[in-house]
């Protein structure tokens, strides 16, 4: 199915950490997961929602808007010359973009018609038939991998990871291009057991180009206040540079191509 319009909450130009080259990243609204460390809490609701303009002023603005595929493509088209010069393209992020899979598919299909490189930044949390549908229009999957233990995953993200891990295996079997992104949330995703499980899982895949370790950041904290939502991760601090390097070496030693950051 195609869709003529959908909900987004941002279009970021000159995105240089969302795949190869200079990219335009479209942030789609909506996500059914509830990760404790989510730094885009304004992305979870599918529909536009009110947010305080700043933490201190009791004045609201609306975050997110409905936008037509045509308008999205118009914005994408504007930066064509930069994709060409840099080997870049379009990245769709979220939220979880797969929630609006018809809209997503429409955008990506149009991009492919114009020969634009496409990347999808996803949690992988969607029914397999949806994943199956979009593989033809996605050149690169930026696939989030958080926790391997099902129970812990459910506790900290609100959903089971069975679907996610199956989808990742499916994409791997289909020989899709995959970059795994692991958010490093101290005390959550960087425990000895999780690291071991993740690295083992990755070693059993064949089409992972590399692993990106994304250090936890507190960019979202402010936004929780503005959305009048509770932030659960107040005690966690940002991982040090040394810690990130340690983790990098950990993966490297297991023969996995790894880098810090996107």
């Amino acid at each position, binding site marked *: 199915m195609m869709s003529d319009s959908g909900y987004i909450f941002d279009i*970021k*130009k*000159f995105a*240089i950490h969302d795949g190869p*080259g*200079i990219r335009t990243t479209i942030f789609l609204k909506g996500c059914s997961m509830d990760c404790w460390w989510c730094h885009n809490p304004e992305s979870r609701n599918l529909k536009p929602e009110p947010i305080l303009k700043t933490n201190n002023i009791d004045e609201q603005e609306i975050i997110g808007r409905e936008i037509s595929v045509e308008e999205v493509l118009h914005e994408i088209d*504007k*930066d064509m*010359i*930069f994709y*060409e*010069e*840099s*080997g*870049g393209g379009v990245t769709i992020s979220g939220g979880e973009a797969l929630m609006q899979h018809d809209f997503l598919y429409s955008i990506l299909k149009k991009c492919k018609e114009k020969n634009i490189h496409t990347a999808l930044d996803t949690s992988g949390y969607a029914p397999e038939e949806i994943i199956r549908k979009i593989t033809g229009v996605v050149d690169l999957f930026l696939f989030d991998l958080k926790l391997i233990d099902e129970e812990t995953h459910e506790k900290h993200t609100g959903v089971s990871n069975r679907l996610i891990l199956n989808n990742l295996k499916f994409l791997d079997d289909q020989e899709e291009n995959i970059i795994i992104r692991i958010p490093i949330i101290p005390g959550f995703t960087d425990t000895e057991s999780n690291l071991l499980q993740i690295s083992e899982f990755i070693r059993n895949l064949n089409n992972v180009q590399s692993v990106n370790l994304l250090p936890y950041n507190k960019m979202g904290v402010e936004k929780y206040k503005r959305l009048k939502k509770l932030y659960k991760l107040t005690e966690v601090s940002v991982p040090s540079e040394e810690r990130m390097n340690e983790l990098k070496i950990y993966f490297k030693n297991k023969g996995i191509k790894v880098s810090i950051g996107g």
Partner: protein
Amino acid sequence: MKERVRKLREQSLTAEPYLSLERATLLTDFYETGIVEDVSIPVARALAFKHILENKEICINEGELIVGERGPEPQAAPTYPEICVHSLDDLNILNSREKISFSVDDETRRISEERIVPFWKGKSIREKIFDNMTTEWIDAYEAGVFTEFMEQRAPGHTVSGKHVFHMGFSDFKKEIEESINNLDFNNDPEAYAKKEELKAMEIAADAIIILANRYSDKAKKLALEETDATRREELEKIAEICSYVPEYAPRTTWEALQHYWFIHLGVITELNTWDSFNPGRLDQNLITFYEEDINERNISVGEIKELLQCFWIKFNNQPAPPKVGVTAEESNTYTDFCLINLGGVKEDGSNAVNNLSFLLLDVIEEMRILQPSSMVQISKETPNDFLMRAMKVVRTGFGQPSIFNTEAIVQEMLNQGKSIIDARNGGASGCVETGAFGKEAYILSGYFNTVKILELTLNNGIDPRTGKQIGLKTGDATTFHAFEDLFEAFTNQLNHFIDIKIEGNNIIERLWAANLPSPFMSLLVDDCIEKGKDYNDGGARYNTTYIQGVGLGTITDSLTSLKYNIFEEKNFSMNDLLLALENNFEEHQTIRQIVLNETPKYGNDDDYADEITKRVFEEFYKAVNGRPNTKGGHHRINLLPTTVHVYFGSVLGATPDGRKAKEPLSEGISPVQGMDMKGPTAVIKSASKIDHLRTGGTLLNQKFTPEILKKDEDLEKVSALIRAYFRMDGHHIQFNVVSADTLRKAQENPERFKSLIVRVAGYSDYFINLGESLQNEIIKRTEHGAI
């Protein structure tokens, strides 16, 4: 960095700029002899030049390999009383002003008061210029509609061509002789004038040889006194070189650098030319010497690097001559705008990058000093490794080198009617100005305040600051029914003031040609010798006069705001807006919020605003381009500000884009500070919508926080950004890479940040030497750069 270079660099950085009356005194001595009464003006000027070079102090600094100072020692700044007489008040201002000061001692004050001022008062070209301007011109000048470049500095704005590196002054003298022999007194009514000019050039050639020989003698003398054997040998070598160049064409890199340096000193001693002088395409001009040194003379790359570093210091030792008044406001810096060009293409259009281009980037990175400034020309042919190497220097965050588009430079010159060979041998100088090196006098005549034109339009020709009617009565703004009415009034006002400016230019050009010819400069620029004509009188092969448009971002956002809010969305009336502007938006916060936050802005790849940019550009272009100057050339436009956007902002009230009274305008073709909300690709798209190829240069400032450029792979993406801009015919882009935090700290503790260099606009400067409003503006720009 070798110890020698480190010490010389330290000396250059720590010496305090001061005013030296050496030149003024020697000049006055000469004029008092009365010789000038008996000879033609060009010959008088040449004899004066010779007198100065015969008698000035000779200074060889400890350990240096390239010798020659303009004044008696490093950081001494001469005055040019035949151009501008500094009153005692001026001297006090220069001595005590907070930024860009020059210390003035009591002896200097005394000599100035007793000799210099009494002799030159009434005779300077500055006074002649103001005496010859119309009331309309004076009114516009005082209102800040435009500035005047030639009111206290000489036309220069030119760059050495390659031929200068391969000719001695004995060769120039032969050409002069030939040119004199070819004069046709029977048929050429100008033959006599040409002969006088050529005689003057010959005297000027002798003068520079005399100076070099005096340096040679001094080096010999120092060698005799020198106890250190190595240094003694060096001094003997210096003595030998200075007795050879510039009389004869150089043979080695060392000779070539010394040769050029004497030429540079000659130009900046003869007159206080804008943009000093410039060795131009240095990697091209030196490459044959470099290769021969390496391959045949067994000289090491390290030795050449050391020579280049010594050469670099010589530039930094010469602060721009002291400026006062509006000229100080528009160009408030010690930098004298010598912009070294690297890369680009050869005459045949092929890639010109060579080993020396890379070595020079090493020198630039290591020296990390204000002068000379540097740029790289990037063409389609330029290999990526060169661009990446340049970007790695940019990343170190002192604003150098700036990045230029060779194809744009070449096409701009072709559009102006230059030959393709001359165009490919050219480049950019000053801030961003396109020129045919060695063949063109491209004179910047003054900045033009496009936003002031709008303010006058909105006030029916009255300057709200003074209440004076200085513009046309283009109609009461509240009676305009449509945006087109307003735009037409704006265009009429624009044309009116461009007429006034050009009329002034054509008089001022003649005043310079008649009163202050520059025979030494004329030796260096083709085809002055062949034509027997002075550089200031159309002797160059190409003669271009520029008017520099300022405030493209602010004028676009202001006109866009008027169109969108008053005539289309009808968010408020013209009356409401005029009242808000009059009150500097006090108690009109709603209007200000609408214009700031809910109105299309230039720099976001939004056609609504960018269409206005294009229209303003077209009108400015039409008003100026192609109109004749008095030297056989034409007026052209370029878009750059140096520091004038601060001054132009200071003469303006609040503007319809939400800018408050007295705040700086946008600079170059950059968006209004903080109004580019969509990142660098959108800025570049907006900026490329104007037709750069019909200008003689545009300036685009981009700011990045250091994080963005930290990784090489990110640097590659920024390089791709540059390539994309250049594919869209962008002329120039420069980067400021310092975090806002650092800048704020520097503002609080200037003494701890003495060496912090930032990109201003077309040049870099010490942050602590910038005025507070400019500092704030750069902090604002930089903060916004965090992506």
